[in-house]
């Protein structure tokens, strides 16, 4: 203790500042404290603000995708008129003329004068003749009766109805001219045009590039479903098996280290690299079909495996060693101890992790672009269950990308609508995971 005793510095006179008076320096420091805290609050606020903006723009832009504008016209077509139309050289044109006539008449009854302009009607309602002809050829007994015929309006009219398109911002094109809006306005006044729920968007398949109105996400929901089925059936057993090995059996050696390093690294490899892997290995090398949910599922399985393994190992680790000891003490083999006791106890945690992994896989897009699940118009649904895995199809996120990449702005609305559907699925899965965790969570 020599240095304390030779301490040359004498104790300064004790400061007698009162504790009840905050000195200037402390005030300054407290101000800095407040500022610092405010930064934190700002950061949280910024994060939540972004979330709100995102949510608002999704909902505001996406909801119109769920409605569709339809025009309903009541008219009667007699047998004679039918025969006459069938006798013409351009049959659908005759039907169109008939329909246009009926439309003008309907408007006239309501006291609205509209010039019968076949081109304009076509821009508003599409090729009405074909639809009409199909209807009467399929239901000949409807001839001579009055029918209430509903036709969906084109996507531009849709846009006009829900405010995306206005007279100010529109430009004349082959899709819609300003004068056409007068007719639409007349229809609105007559009350024959209305918005209905667009079931086709939820159940239908993608449409051609110039028909945003007819595009639906249904086929790609089916594609995503098949993909998730593949991911679930592969990643759950493989993930659980791998985790059991690493957590319960693996010796401490180089091989185990190698696996561990690989898993933690794969979890951080960009998803597009998995797409390249899928393209090169599954399609180029193994000749599996392009655009098939099977291949998509395989790629996503490889991608989600690290996530699932990491969460599964955490739940296995959470089971206290005393449970294993108890089983081993009764003479069970290690394998029996794990499969009979540890695994069932860890199952809720494993399932929660798996659902979250699946939700991640469901929203993944980039790898799907590379294996061709994009820009593809699925024609009809898969016929059989098995062919659903190997027939070309799209997936929800890939479909959304396809729409976003198209030139026609009508598709943007569909893309936002698709996002709403996708997020509903994700939300459901996450809520399921939370419920599972709440219900079965066990504290040791």
């Amino acid at each position, binding site marked *: 203790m020599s240095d304390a005793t030779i301490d040359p510095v004498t104790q300064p006179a004790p400061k007698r500042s009162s504790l009840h008076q905050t000195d200037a320096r*402390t005030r300054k420091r407290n101000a800095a404290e407040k500022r610092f805290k405010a930064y934190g609050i700002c950061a949280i606020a910024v994060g939540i603000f972004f979330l709100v903006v995102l949510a608002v723009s999704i909902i505001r832009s996406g909801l119109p995708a769920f409605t569709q504008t339809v025009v309903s016209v009541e008219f009667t077509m007699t047998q004679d008129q039918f025969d006459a139309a069938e006798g013409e050289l351009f049959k659908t044109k005759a039907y169109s003329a008939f329909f246009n006539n009926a439309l003008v008449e309907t408007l006239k009854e309501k006291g609205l004068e509209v010039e019968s302009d076949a081109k304009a009607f076509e821009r508003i309602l599409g090729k009405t003749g074909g639809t009409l002809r199909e209807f009467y050829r399929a239901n000949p007994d409807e001839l001579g009766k009055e029918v209430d015929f509903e036709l969906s309006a084109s996507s531009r009219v849709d846009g006009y109805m829900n405010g995306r398109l206005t007279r100010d911002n529109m430009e004349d094109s082959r899709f819609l001219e300003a004068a056409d809006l007068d007719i639409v306005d007349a229809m609105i006044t007559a009350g024959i045009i209305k918005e209905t729920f667009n079931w086709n968007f939820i159940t239908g398949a993608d449409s051609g590039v110039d028909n945003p109105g007819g595009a639906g996400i249904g086929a790609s929901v089916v594609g995503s479903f098949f993909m998730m089925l593949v991911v679930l059936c592969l990643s759950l057993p493989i993930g659980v098996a791998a985790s059991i090995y690493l957590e319960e059996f693996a010796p401490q050696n180089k091989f185990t280290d190698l696996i561990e390093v690989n898993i933690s690294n794969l979890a951080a490899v960009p998803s597009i690299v998995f797409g390249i892997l899928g393209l090169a290995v599954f399609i180029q090398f193994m000749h599996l079909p392009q655009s098939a949910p099977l291949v998509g599922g395989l790629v996503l399985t490889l991608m989600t495996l690290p996530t699932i393994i990491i969460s599964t190992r955490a739940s296995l680790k959470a089971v206290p060693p005393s449970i294993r000891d108890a089983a081993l003490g009764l003479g069970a083999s290690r394998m029996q101890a794990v499969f009979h006791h540890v695994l069932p106890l860890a199952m809720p945690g494993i399932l929660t992790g798996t659902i979250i992994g699946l939700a991640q896989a469901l929203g993944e897009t980039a790898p799907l672009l590379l294996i061709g699940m994009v820009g593809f118009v699925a024609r009809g649904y898969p016929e059989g269950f098995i062919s659903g895995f190997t027939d070309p199809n799209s997936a929800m996120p890939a479909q959304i990308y396809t729409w976003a990449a198209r030139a026609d702005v009508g598709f943007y609305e569909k893309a936002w609508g698709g996002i709403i559907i996708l997020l509903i699925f994700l939300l459901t899965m996450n809520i399921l995971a939370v419920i599972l965790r709440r219900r079965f969570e066990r504290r040791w």
Partner: protein
Amino acid sequence: MYDAPKLETALDQQDIKISADKVQVYYGETHAIKDVSVEIEDKTVTAFIGPSGCGKSTFLRTLNRMNDTIDICRVQGNILLDGEDIYHAKVDPVQLRAKVGMVFQKPNPFPKSIYDNIAYGPRIHGLANSKADLDVIVEKSLRRGAIWDEVKDRLHAPGTGLSGGQQQRLCIARAVATEPEVLLMDEPCSALDPIATAQVEELIDELRKNYSVVIVTHSMQQAARVSQKTAFFHLGNLVEYDDTSKIFTNPSDERTESYITGRIG
């Protein structure tokens, strides 16, 4: 001494540094400290002893409002430092802690150099006007912490690289650097080996010249060696507070006697 009540200056004419009156501490529903009144003298080593969980550390932490960092903790009663209520609304705990420094059970040097560890307090309190000032303070504090000779050649090495005993002396030096008036020590030797303990105890004896030192300890021998006054806590109550020699030779409470002789605790 402003308008504080005239305090009885007993025994050997020491000033009263801290005066606690009917202090109650609650952790949520638990009543951790019950009705403790104690007067801690200046330039004296006061030891708090008692069995585990008796509340001696909790009480120590109320003396510089370290309990403020725990949400569920409530303190009632008066604690006066030089006659001023430290739980008064106007008191900034930051200013208070500059006057009442604390050393913890486990050495906790910051992940910085030895020099920066010591300079941390003076810097935040603005005690140095220049680099030279700071150098003087650092050297002085390290000397007072009885560690200067061991570290003077490696002031810029990380403080975490020292041995346990050195780390604890560094922490004491760090606490001394802000020139506190009271030094609280919460079992400062419990993580140290006997040799390091002896060094720290010797240091505590030195520190008594300038500070009022309050030390919580599990070791009765240590309390007997370093302190002049001893307080015995039991189940949140202050059972007995007296001169150390009296407590260890002739305790007036039988619980104290049981503890000293090893029957409880």
